[in-house]
């Protein structure tokens, strides 16, 4: 931007602030206008220097006013900073500014890089000449910047006086039409109305039968019944969810260099569909998406709503190699998304400097970043059944209590009963029977010596790692095996391990059965592992977790024997000729090997077989093996309850995942964990290398009725920040949220919002054509929180039902139909075209929900991103004819069919889809394999219908399905020769390409 234009912009902002402009267009006029007549020295020579050299640290625009001195307005230097006025007009030598840039005053610390002499001279001349500065901004003007339509308090407007039975929406619209002297068109015919309403609410055309029934329905409330029926259908949620997913740039992959698939993103898509179908109150929808974990902690099934936080793109590569800038931009995306989607505010314009047009400071912006400073994107686990979550919580707490011997929990009444029951059931301690070892071997050359007591002592070669394999005959039934690792004087530190410190690491235990009749051994599942002692971080559970990197250890309890019991998931029947193989992998390295071991088995009650800690078993023995409750110690309880808790946890259904953002999330990098939120500071010029003051969580100061900084207690959880923002958004005193959504709903019904910039209600956006109507609708939404109510209100108006047929005169007077004297014609969007083709061809599969359908084949790519082929697909495969909302949207590799019809690039938020026309688009609709396949399918479907055997009947049926009316004789005459010569499919293809099919009147 040239300096002159920048000056003009600043001037324009000043003016925009000082006078209320009639429209954004007018504001734009201001922006492009020539600079206001001012002293040329200042605008041409002085201001560029100030801007280049000073504003970075001394301006409102930068959000940095060091030393309290602002140089971007005259009053800034006139009042001056902490040391008083910066300029004394006419007296450069006495002016602090001049002294500072000359670096003559050591108290004025300035950057080292000095201004060139000619710039210093310019400023000196300017000050000497009286420091003429046209940048007059009355202080009050800054406050006035909140005097803007979208920020004004939302109060219920009076419905304009009209005939008593007049619909309120029409009263507002007709009042404007009357002012403009425009007459409205008549109501559209019924055929048009049902198509318009059905496509609007469902994204699908009505069936010919539905059309005929509605046309024939003479009851006075036929239309409102239709409206009710459509709103009650699950097709409604599918259509309106798509609008919301556009709005928040939701897709199924990351985008960027590593455009990886998110297999769990779809659960959020299903949440949105269900929410619209259930008419979830709008405030609850906002709250759940921002912080379901706070507002509904018990209702874990609502956690899917947090998929909202993970909707946007993710730069996996930058996350690894450039984490600071990655996180900064990732938070920026969430701020943009949240403020754009919920509040129609362009907050991110204030990332590098104060918002140029709207009253949003850098402080505000970074306060919003702070809201999201404790979360990262990835898969977040949750229990889809809240009861499971409660159970899980209970058993996890118990397991933790057992781990830490928390007596208040372990000896509590409810748990004492569990222990008593165990003791009662346990009877005698399990009898451990020796296993008859047939072979014993070391894979790495250690020498194994059988001892008289049935144990094995390891001697000789001490390899780094080893795998010990024992093959044995055993009792007919085995419920558990016990591995004793025994101290021995021959071992380092008396063992039981062979490491220098006497330790051992048992990485994995595997058990299998070999039967002569079976070629392969059968693995035996171990359900539970217990040990009398676990090294910190090296527990016995890690010996059966399938992860070769983890292991069971016994340090520092060396020099003493230990035991571990492996309880089988099911009792094992061991035939006489069958052999049990036990493999002990000790592959940690450093000779963490078992030095002496003994293997025994039991056929007793598995409950009795668990390994107790030393104290616990002693206590148990002391009580004669039949301790009653009063003798139970926390040691026994810890063992029993810990085992019970782990058993119960293992039985719970697994958690599900949703791609979201949270303090703990799983992604390609592993577990992403934010112990506490990142510190957020205002960044001068948005530059990470220039941090300024720290900012806590908050929102916009411009919404003056609400506290802009969230008063959260010290040490609060990050989730409290998201919750606070949600509450700020849905506060009845926040005018933005209600206006924003009421306008969106209008936008999707009419193709244009009352403000036609649905994501920007600021000065660069459009002011509403009918501000009072918008406020009236917003008040209704605020009061009832119901979108379905809003749809009913809008769609039942005469305004909505108007015919789009109109005179050229009407087009001349109101070309864009801003005053709504007529209905607006719209092209079906990409999703609706595909769904309409499926619906008319008779192939539409209305199965809802679940993982997305892949309209492509894929093969692995060179890195994380696969190679997709949208041409190589089977259009008849299961799921391939479901609605478009269920397709996988690959952010960086768009489907060419959808792409041609303006399915948006979801790298950014999409408030309104485009409606382009091009030759390539025409070719896609004519020749895309999907279209042709379904032209064929539709022809086959019609031909298979015996009632339509004659060609003319088939043609009529094809036209009925697509145009929802009977063909005229002239049309039939046009179509018949094509069908006769080239087949009915050629006609179906033609109909899919016809404007009557593509456009909604």
């Amino acid at each position, binding site marked *: *931007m040239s300096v002159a234009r920048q000056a003009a912009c600043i001037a324009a902002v000043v003016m925009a602030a000082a006078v209320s402009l009639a429209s954004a267009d007018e504001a*734009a006029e201001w922006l492009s206008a020539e600079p206001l007549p001012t002293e040329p020295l200042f605008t041409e020579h002085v201001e560029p220097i100030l801007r280049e050299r000073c504003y970075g640290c001394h301006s409102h625009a930068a959000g940095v006013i060091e030393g309290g001195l602002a140089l971007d307005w005259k009053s800034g230097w006139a009042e001056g900073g902490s040391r008083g006025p910066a300029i004394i007009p006419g007296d450069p030598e006495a002016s602090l500014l001049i002294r500072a840039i000359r670096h003559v005053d050591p108290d004025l610390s300035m950057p080292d890089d000095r201004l060139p002499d000619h710039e210093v001279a310019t400023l000196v001349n300017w000050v000497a000449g009286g420091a003429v500065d046209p940048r007059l901004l009355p202080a009050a003007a800054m406050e006035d910047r909140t005097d803007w339509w979208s920020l004004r308090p939302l109060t219920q407007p009076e419905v304009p006086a009209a005939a008593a039975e007049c619909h309120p929406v029409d009263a507002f619209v007709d009042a404007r039409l009357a002012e403009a002297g425009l007459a409205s068109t008549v109501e559209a015919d019924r055929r048009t109305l049902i198509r318009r309403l059905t496509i609007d609410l469902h994204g699908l055309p009505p069936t010919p039968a539905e059309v005929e029934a509605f046309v024939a329905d003479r009851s006075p409330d036929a239309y409102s019944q239709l409206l009710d029926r459509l709103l009650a259908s699950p097709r409604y949620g599918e259509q309106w969810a798509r609008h919301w997913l556009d709005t928040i740039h939701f897709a199924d992959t990351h*985008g*960027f*260099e590593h*455009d990886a698939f998110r297999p769990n993103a779809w659960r959020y898509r299903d949440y949105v569909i269900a929410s619209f179908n259930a008419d979830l109150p709008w405030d609850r929808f906002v709250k759940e998406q921002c912080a379901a974990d706070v507002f509904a902690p018990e209702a874990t099934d609502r956690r899917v709503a947090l998929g909202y936080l993970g909707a946007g*793109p993710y730069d996996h*590569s*930058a996350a690894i*190699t*450039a*984490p600071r*800038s990655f996180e900064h*931009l990732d938070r920026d995306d969430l701020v943009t998304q949240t403020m754009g989607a919920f509040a129609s505010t362009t907050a991110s*314009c204030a990332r590098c400097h104060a918002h140029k*047009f709207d009253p949003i400071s850098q402080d505000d912006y970074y306060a919003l970043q702070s809201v999201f400073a404790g979360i990262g994107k990835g898969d977040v686990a949750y229990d889809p059944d809240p009861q499971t979550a409660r159970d899980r919580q209970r058993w996890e707490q118990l397991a933790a209590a057992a781990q830490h011997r928390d007596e208040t929990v372990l000896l509590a009444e409810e748990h004492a009963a569990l222990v008593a029951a165990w003791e009662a059931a346990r009877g005698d301690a399990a009898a451990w029977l020796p296993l008859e070892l047939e072979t014993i071997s070391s894979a790495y050359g250690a020498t194994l010596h059988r001892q008289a007591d049935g144990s094995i002592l390891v001697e000789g070669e001490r390899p780094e790692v080893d795998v010990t394999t024992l093959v044995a005959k055993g009792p007919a039934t085995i419920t558990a095996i016990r591995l004793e690792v025994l101290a021995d004087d021959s071992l380092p530190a008396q063992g039981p391990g062979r490491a220098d410190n006497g330790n051992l690491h048992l990485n994995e235990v595997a058990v299998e059965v070999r039967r002569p009749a079976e070629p392969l051994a059968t693995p035996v599942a171990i359900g539970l592992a217990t040990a009398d002692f676990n090294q910190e971080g090296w527990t016995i559970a890690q010996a059966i977790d399938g992860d070769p990197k983890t292991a069971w250890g016994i340090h520092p309890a060396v020099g003493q024997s230990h035991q571990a019991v492996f309880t089988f998931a099911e009792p094992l029947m061991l035939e006489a000729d069958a052999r049990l193989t036990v493999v002990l992998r000790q592959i940690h390295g450093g000779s963490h090997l078992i030095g002496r071991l003994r293997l025994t088995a039991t056929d007793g009650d598995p409950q009795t077989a668990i390994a107790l800690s030393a104290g616990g078993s002693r206590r148990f023995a002391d009580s004669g093996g039949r301790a009653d409750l009063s003798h139970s110690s926390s040691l026994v309880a810890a063992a029993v309850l810990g085992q019970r808790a782990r058993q119960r946890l293992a039985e719970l259904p697994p958690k599900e995942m949703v791609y979201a953002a949270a303090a703990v999330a799983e992604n390609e990098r592993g577990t992403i964990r934010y112990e506490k939120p990142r510190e957020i500071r205002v960044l001068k010029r948005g530059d990470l290398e220039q941090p300024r003051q720290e900012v806590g969580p908050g929102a916009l100061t411009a919404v003056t009725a609400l506290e802009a900084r969230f008063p959260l207690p010290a040490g609060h959880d990050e989730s409290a920040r998201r919750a606070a923002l949600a509450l700020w958004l849905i506060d009845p005193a926040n005018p933005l949220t209600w206006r924003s959504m009421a306008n969106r709903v209008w936008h999707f019904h009419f*193709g244009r919002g009352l403000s036609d*910039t649905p*994501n920007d209600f600021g000065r*660069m956006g459009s002011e509403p054509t009918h501000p009072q109507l918008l406020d009236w609708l917003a008040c209704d939404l605020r009061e009832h929180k119901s979108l379905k109510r809003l749809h009913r209100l809008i769609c039942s108006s005469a305004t909505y039902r108007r015919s789009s*047929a109109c005179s050229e005169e009407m*087009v001349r007077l109101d*070309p*864009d139909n801003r005053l709504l004297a007529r209905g607006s*014609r719209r092209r079906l969007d990409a999703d609706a075209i595909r769904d309409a083709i499926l619906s008319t061809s008779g192939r539409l599969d209305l199965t809802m929900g679940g993982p997305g359908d892949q309209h492509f084949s894929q093969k692995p790519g*060179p890195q994380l991103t696969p*190679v997709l082929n949208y*041409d190589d697909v089977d259009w008849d495969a299961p799921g391939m004819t479901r609605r478009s909302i269920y397709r996988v949207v690959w*952010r*960086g590799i768009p489907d*060419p069919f959808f792409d*041609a019809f303006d399915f948006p*690039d979801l*790298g*950014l938020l999409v408030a*309104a889809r485009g409606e*382009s*026309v*091009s*030759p*390539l*688009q*025409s*070719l*896609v609709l*004519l*020749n*895309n394999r999907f279209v*042709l396949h379904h*032209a*064929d399918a539709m022809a086959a479907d019609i031909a298979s219908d015996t009632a339509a055997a004659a060609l003319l009947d088939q043609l009529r049926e094809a036209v009925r399905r697509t145009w929802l009316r009977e063909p005229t004789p002239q049309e039939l005459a046009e179509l018949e020769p*094509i069908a006769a*010569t080239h087949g009915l*499919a*050629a006609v179906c*293809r*033609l109909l899919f390409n*016809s*404007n*009557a099919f593509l456009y909604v009147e």
Partner: protein
Amino acid sequence: MTLRFRESLPPLPRRRFLTDAGGGFGAMAASAWLAGERAAASHGRGLEGLHHPARVRRVIQLFMNGGASPMDTFDYKPALERHDGQMLGPKEKPEGFTAAAGAVMKSPFAFARHGESGRWVSSVFPHQAGIVDRLTFLMAMTSKSNVHGPASYMMNTGFTLPGFPCLGAWISYGLGSISDELPEFVVLPDPRGLPYNQKANFTAGFLPARHQGTVIDAAASEPVPDLFAGEAFGFARGQADRDTRDALQRLNRQHAAEYPADSRLEARLAAGELAARMQLSAPEAFDLASETRGTHAAYGLDRPETEDFGRRCLLARRLIERGTRFVQVWSGPQGAINNWDNHGNIQTELPPMAMSVDQPITALVKDLEARGLLADTLVIWSTEFGRTPFAQGSLGRDHNGGSFVTWLTGAGVKPGVAYGASDDLGYQAAEGTTSSYDLHATILHLLGIDHEQLTFRTAGIDRRLTDVHGHVIGEVLA
């Protein structure tokens, strides 16, 4: 609305700019829904015609995907030999480096001076060495990012984030097509795979969808997707296709007659006719058989090393010649091999890449010149960032947005000139620093567009290709 591509130049006639943001349609001419040669602006800040006479009408951009090493190609650094093996790199790993910097590593390739301009070129580019006097070098380009995704976005869209329109889309939006018979913005990716960011490098972002790059698989039997119905669909081919579309146009015309005031319906009709014309002209454009054997050989189509890139360079010339406005030719897919991202071993990984493009690029420039096309065509050789003078491992080089090389040739630029310089090691830009903003501003300038005036309002901002930056690099303009 078809314009002959050899109309007199410059200056281009001033044309009316039309609004096409959002969906205002009542007052809009049908031509506004299609892309005639015109520029568009949004929302009341309409531009009145092109801003100044254009020097360039069409552009071919050659993109070396992965980060072509400057100090092993065009940026000769004798200091690297002196400091070879010394630990002079940053102590801490800068953001975007994949590893800590190793020792300074000299180029394994011999450099020599070439041409009257005496430009240093390494031995990996023997063919381009022969045309250095026609090239205009930007020797100190910089990127905001050292990460492929954001850096590729920056070179293509001017932003480091997704969702923004690329250079080709902006040009299409600003100027429209030269010919209605070919797509106005064509992308020829490496057949081995898409670059980083996949197709998002070619996106129209928030601009109308028709401005996005048409991705063409040069090796496919039917390169333009959906130009014709597939063989399985006889009812949509040949005579059936012609009859059906004639009837379709008649029925659509009837339908439009019922709604006389809607230009979109007219536009769909016009698009249908243009589509038919494209079907006639596109196959000819993609048919390389009509080129002479000498041309095939010049572009390297007779050798496996150069065949693929040569074919796409030749195709680029044919498209440009027939009225495509902007063609982007990519060398190298994303991933660890077959591209310019030479982390492992510069000595073994760079030469095959360099060889695959060197002769085709040189042939393209000479061919364009011989045909007089260079008089209004700009060719750009570019990459997303450079590489470190420090070794990664012992033989490779890491990403470096600090300094890299771009060259331009053709209309409007000063041949044989080098602007800017990197520091002694080639690590950071030292003087004449430029960025994608400046490159884009310069390209738009040559096309007759003021980069500050080509805007589209979205989400409250009048977006530009150059964000709030960019200076036309006057030093390289002819």
